[in-house]
């Protein structure tokens, strides 16, 4: 199926999300759609998959103009999209999710559905158990489920929006193999939306780069990375280097922490961190690192063990007491956990600042504007946080943190951010480190872990491997440890 997007326009208020974008998708090709956050990639693909309406322009399918008003219509035509955050139904089983949308009878044929699901799983080496509720699946498994579902619905064009965020390295390998198989063996058209250059380089046949809603270039691969960076940003940006500092006294001490979860028990985890130390937490999603860090933040109840801050035990205290004593958490889910959707940027500050009972809104407005300028947030004080891009949401979250934190915990601090924002985030974190804040962060990006950590902690299936100094570790060794193996 040959698809042509012609002169697509989409405005959100005054913002041009797409401005005259044209794009051709050919069967048997993997097309990379590149661009930094807010470049208009997701919008364009949501228009193609019927999730969003366009303001102007045409979509030609095999030369014929086509209008679809919903994802269901797009799927019927043969276009399916995997969204950045899986749009599935967590309490329902994998099979029930799989069968959504394609069996319209009152009593869906479970047997046939199961059969088809298992066949697809076998064909692509997927590992999803049909009877597991989706909430217990990893992001990678949910992705496999969604790919199977779209294939069962007969799509010819499959769009993946940032599919490698939050999935493990082996899952990524499998995903790429699957996509290549779909394009080259089954002659489907694959669109890979990403801002990760290495991935685009290793996977795509051709690329289109978007910037501020416009096409910056379309080229056949291979294209030198510097050229891609130039197209995406106008200039190349380097990530800030870690500064060496003298580590201070022990700030945080965790002794014999035992945490029970539905999948496993983390047993007797110990950790000591110094002021200004950065510790990266690696591991496949859901291996226990999030539970461990959330228990240090006071959000997760523990079975036994203690958390000491500056020598004082925090055991049995509430999350708010943890916070009051200088431990703060920036959740991975910035818009559903980190910020309060529906409130403006200005309305967030009184929640975190020392504010008298009666809020001085004028003063707060001035303060917010100062923070916006200082943190270079693209928005006005009255802008709702939900309308900010991921990078700007992270900037607001950092702006909200008290200056003198003892421990700052970040889940995937740069996930989904463009390079410019990611660079900025680490600049801020390094500054805090220099002021003596201990920084604990999780990341699926091993380079990020290796670049910024002083020591690295690996979690595998609920087992914590004690911290290793980053000087004694290579990316390769780290990769093995995440997979539960030791490199000989």
């Amino acid at each position, binding site marked *: 199926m040959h698809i042509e997007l012609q002169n697509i326009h989409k405005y959100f208020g005054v913002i041009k999300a797409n401005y005259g974008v044209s794009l051709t998708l050919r069967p048997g090709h993997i097309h990379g759609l590149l661009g930094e*956050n807010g470049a208009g990639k997701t919008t364009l693909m949501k228009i193609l998959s019927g999730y969003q309406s366009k303001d102007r322009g045409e979509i030609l399918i095999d030369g014929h103009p086509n209008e679809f008003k919903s994802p269901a219509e797009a799927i019927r035509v043969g276009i399916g999209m995997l969204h950045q955050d899986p749009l599935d139904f967590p309490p329902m089983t994998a099979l029930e999710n799989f069968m959504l949308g394609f069996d319209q009878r009152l009593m869906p044929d479970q047997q046939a559905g199961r059969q088809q699901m298992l066949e697809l799983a076998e064909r692509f080496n997927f590992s999803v158990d049909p009877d597991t509720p989706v909430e217990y699946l990893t992001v990678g498994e949910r992705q496999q489920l969604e790919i199977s579902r779209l294939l069962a619905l007969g799509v010819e064009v499959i769009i993946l929006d940032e599919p490698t965020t939050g999935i493990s390295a082996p899952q990524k390998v499998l995903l790429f193999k699957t996509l290549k198989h779909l394009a080259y063996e089954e002659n489907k058209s694959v669109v890979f939306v990403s801002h990760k250059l290495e991935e685009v380089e290793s996977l795509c046949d051709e690329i289109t780069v978007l910037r501020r809603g416009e096409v910056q270039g379309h080229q056949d691969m291979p294209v030198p990375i510097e050229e891609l960076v130039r197209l995406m940003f106008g200039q190349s940006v380097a990530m800030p280097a870690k500064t060496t500092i003298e580590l201070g006294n022990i700030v945080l001490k965790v002794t014999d922490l035992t945490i029970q979860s539905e999948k496993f028990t983390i047993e007797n985890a110990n950790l000591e961190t110094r002021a200004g130390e950065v510790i990266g937490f690696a591991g496949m999603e859901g291996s226990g690192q999030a539970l461990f860090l959330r228990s240090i933040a006071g959000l997760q109840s523990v079975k036994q063990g203690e958390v000491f801050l500056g020598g004082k035990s925090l055991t049995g205290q509430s999350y708010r007491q943890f916070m009051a004593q200088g431990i703060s958490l920036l959740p991975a889910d910035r818009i559903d956990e980190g910020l309060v959707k529906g409130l403006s940027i200005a309305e967030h500050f009184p929640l975190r600042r020392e504010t008298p009972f*009666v809020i001085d809104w004028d003063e707060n407005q001035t303060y917010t504007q100062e923070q916006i300028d200082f943190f270079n947030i693209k928005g006005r004080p009255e802008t709702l946080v939900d*309308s900010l891009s991921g990078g700007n949401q992270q900037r607001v979250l950092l702006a909200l943190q008290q200056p003198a934190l003892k421990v700052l915990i970040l889940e995937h601090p740069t996930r989904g951010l463009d390079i410019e924002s990611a660079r900025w985030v680490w600049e801020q974190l390094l500054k805090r480190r220099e002021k003596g804040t201990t920084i604990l962060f999780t990341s699926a990006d091993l380079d990020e872990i290796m670049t910024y950590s002083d020591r690295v902690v690996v979690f595998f299936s609920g087992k914590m491997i004690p911290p290793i100094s980053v000087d004694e570790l290579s990316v390769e060794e780290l990769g093995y440890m995440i997979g539960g193996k030791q490199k000989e």
Partner: protein
Amino acid sequence: MQHKLSDLPTRIFWVVAPLVTALLFTSALLLIVGAPPLQAIWEIINGALESPQKWADVMTAWVPLALVGAGMSVTFAAGLWNIGAEGQIILGAIFATWIARNIELPQLPLLFLIVIAGILGGVLWGLLTGFLKVYARVHEIFAGLGLNFIATALIIWLIFNPWKPARGATMSGTEPFPVTAWIPRLGSTRLPPLAVILAAICVVAAYLMLNGSRFGLELRAMGKNMRAAFLQGIPTQRHMLLAFIICGGMAGLAGALQATAVYHRLIPRISGGFGYTGMLVVLLAGYKPEFVPLVALFFAAIGVGSPRLELNMQLDASLGGVLEGSVVLFVLLGAGLRQRLNHNTRTALETEE
């Protein structure tokens, strides 16, 4: 840019259009039953406004509506579907009655005590919903509904058993309170000016609290996203209980005023359904206390005006309820429609990474 579609003429349109549609809808119903709509509407307006006596009646009905509306704007702001105001009014009236029947004091301190007791009664009932919600994880809709039924049963039992008049229990309620327990009325009308003042204070307080205080902002944050609010460090459980306390207090005050200022006794229908009508008021006011007084006035006027339909046109007075209900439905419908039209503008930005 979320204000782009909200210039003044557009905003006025979205207020007026649903009201006109509701009037047309009610008129169509009237035509079906063979009554002249214009005359019916005229009767309602006239019935509510023809004399100072009627104006006073409208204001008397306005008091509980404004109080319940203000209270519920607080719980709604916190994202709580508090439907328990009916029960909270009743408990307020019961507590007030107990004081009026049992305590002998000069008028001023007695009235003060009655009002405080009424507030406490409402607070107690609101807090029960809150406890069920926070500690027992019972959804506030079911907790509120259940407690409304219990409150209704309780008031009937009290009137027909321990508090029945010497001449025998009837639906007309208890013996009148001693005169010292009456809140004074304005001249020969039924309007207690003190009640109006108290209700106005509550509306203003709710507005100031929600828009000017840190606590109000925190409640609004909870209403937007409870989990994120908790992670921001807001004590969500305590705040939920406080919201129930505030709403219960205002509803309880309404109940006390109904007993001590309007009826001077406890009657089975003391709440007058204001706990439910008050919900319509706050819905129509868009959960904003600043719009509650006006909407409450509108509902009060319809309530006072519609009995005229029975008198002059042999139509059932419940037609007023039909008009109230259809106004709310069409306003909600209009809001939904408006949101749909704005949808792309609103949600699209957040989806763009």
